């Protein structure tokens, strides 16, 4: 097994195309960050106007325990005050206020609390920007109002964190920042599927095209070979993820002000729900095994890489089908289409990862979907082994599924 993993991993790593595919997303992301940086000045200029728009279009009130908020600014932006926190929250719940900002004693350390009406799908509420902007403008306008210059400098240099709770019809709804940690698994799954699918399919179609299958099958069991290939592909996936994330993490560590997370978000403020993260990891691993098995099996059925890659699109598209129903996946988790996507093997990895991220998957559903995925992964690996065992020796010929099952 180690011999196969060693051979498969290193021969992929030696290919330029592997590195081009791995580095391309990093370049794209860095390019987007560059463009974002160029546009940041105009965004900052617009920030004050936006704040005023929000405060004018919807009633906003604050409670300032920090003593930093400038009362003239509040008056200019028609922002009221609340006598205590509970009253502010109650006013938001009842719909009297669009948002309520609570500034604790040291907002640069403990962050700003934002209570607001739901604004739809968004990682950070637009009120977060307004709350930060109000604080920064206040500090900038009258530095002497701060308890010390160092606090003011800290607030101006680095946006304070924001904890946001949103309400819809008086009920608290999930903060989408909760989706970030488990959502990362969904993002990585998409990336691996897109970047590694050709390597997956060619890992077996190449054996067939090169006519090496007979020598391999007399030297090693098909099951060992396929498992070796699956593990190799997962290792290559990890390499690609590392290539993608390490530069971004380094960029964030060394240039935090140039690397904008959504307003008020810091790495440390991203909430971690251990159950959701655990399920995300399981859906990711089992889903990936199932997908690799399926694609590797397809590769063994077709006479060459080109023929196989034509069918690769069919394999990939299943992972993106749930995106077309993303609104239902998030907001109507019990709709029939979402249920079908959750339990249909080829759409299950994406749907479960997305639903798990946005918190619309109950623990019971998660276990059921996981069971379906584990069973599907077993079937998928069985299919790959059988396809390689019986399909890879049929050089120059496509093997049908009927033929595969009959053998």
């Amino acid at each position: 097994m180690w011999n196969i993993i060693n051979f498969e991993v290193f021969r992929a790593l030696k290919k330029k195309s592997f590195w081009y595919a791995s580095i391309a997303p990093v370049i794209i992301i860095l390019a987007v960050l560059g463009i974002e940086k160029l546009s940041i000045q105009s965004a900052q200029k617009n920030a004050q106007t936006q704040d005023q728009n929000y405060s004018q279009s919807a009633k906003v009130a604050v409670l300032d325990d920090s003593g930093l908020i400038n009362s003239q600014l509040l008056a200019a932006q028609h922002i009221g005050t609340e006598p205590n926190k509970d009253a502010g929250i109650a006013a938001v719940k009842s719909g009297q206020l669009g948002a309520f900002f609570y500034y604790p004693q040291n907002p640069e350390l403990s962050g700003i609390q934002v209570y607001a009406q739901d604004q739809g799908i968004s990682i950070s509420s637009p009120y977060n920007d307004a709350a930060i902007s109000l604080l920064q403008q206040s500090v900038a306008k009258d530095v002497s109002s701060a308890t010390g210059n160092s606090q003011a400098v800290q607030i101006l240099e680095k946006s304070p964190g924001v904890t946001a709770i949103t309400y819809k019809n008086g009920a608290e709804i999930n903060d989408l920042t909760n989706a970030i940690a488990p959502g990362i698994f969904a993002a990585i799954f998409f990336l691996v599927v897109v970047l590694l699918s050709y390597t997956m399919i060619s890992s077996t179609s190449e054996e067939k095209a090169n006519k090496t299958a007979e020598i391999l099958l007399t030297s090693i069991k098909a099951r060992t070979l396929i498992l070796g290939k699956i593990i190799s592909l997962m290792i290559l996936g990890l390499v690609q993820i590392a290539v993608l994330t390490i530069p971004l993490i380094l960029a964030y560590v060394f240039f935090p002000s140039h690397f904008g997370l959504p307003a008020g978000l810091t790495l440390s403020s991203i909430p971690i729900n251990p159950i959701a993260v655990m399920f995300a990891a399981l859906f990711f691993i089992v889903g990936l095994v199932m997908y690799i098995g399926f694609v590797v099996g397809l590769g063994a059925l077709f006479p060459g890489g080109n023929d196989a890659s034509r069918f690769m699109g069919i394999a990939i598209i299943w992972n993106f089908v749930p995106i077309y129903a993303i609104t239902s996946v998030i907001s109507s988790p019990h709709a029939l289409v979402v249920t079908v996507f959750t339990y249909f093997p080829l759409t299950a990895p994406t749907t479960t990862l997305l639903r798990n991220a946005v918190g619309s998957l109950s623990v019971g559903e998660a276990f059921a979907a996981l069971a379906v995925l584990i069973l599907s992964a077993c079937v998928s690996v069985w299919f790959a082994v059988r396809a390689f065992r019986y399909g890879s020796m049929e050089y120059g010929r496509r093997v049908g599924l009927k033929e595969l099952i009959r053998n």
Partner: protein
Amino acid sequence: MDFPVVDIQSFAMSFGPKEVIKDLSFNVNQGEVFGLLGANGAGKTTTIRTLLSLLEPTSGTLSVNGKRYSPAMAATVGYLPEQRGLYRNEPVLDTMVYLAVMHGLSRDEATKRSKAYLERVGIADKAHERLSSLSNGQQQKVQLGATIVHEPSLMILDEPTEALDPVNRSLLMDIIQEQRAKGATVMLVTHRMEEVEQLCDRIVLLKDGHRALYGTVDEVKNQFGATVIALAYSGQLPINERLYGITKQLPHYAELAWQKGVAVDEIFKFLANSPDLHVTAFDVRRPTLNEIFLSLYK
């Protein structure tokens, strides 16, 4: 004492309604070079693939060293398939080491032996080049190396000289002789009868999926063919149906099968005294395997 390294008994194979092998039995003894012969489509490759458990037999038993073959026995078997190929985009040495490790060698030993083989066949300088950058003949050498580098005790070579250039054909013949001298058993699948005559101790000949001939080369010749007279001549070859029949005739060469009860001397005297015929060579010989093969398939 002969020990059957390969034992095939009552082997039958069908693909759907088509029966391609019918009740085939033979064995291959330790240390011999055995020829599995037959025309294209006779069932040779199917027999080998089934022997190596790449296919499951419809009925019958096929064993290597007394057991059904499994990849766990890979260290003892070197298989050169009819449909051959290696990783075209990988370095030669990496491919050879990968396959040798699969056949039970340690990585160090596999590297050492692969390098030694490449040195022996004169392509050591290509060890780190991609296979696709090598000439066809050099690729064939690598393929042979991948088959024998782990020094198997049983070599199964399916059409080994097919598409080989004369240099590599000679190299293969040397390798077969070397391995045999070391005690290896060689199973040669071919339809090239001249190679069989040069190398094989025993043969089995398949025709339409069943055993048409089986035994030592001598036994097969005795079993099948009558002795013929090979005649080189100029002039006019006379017809004499009382003495002989003409089985093959070219402008200056003919093969004669003599009639029952007629002595060779009598034919020779008759030809020597024929006025329009000048005999330049007269040879009494048994038929070649090629002749037997051709007559079987007529």
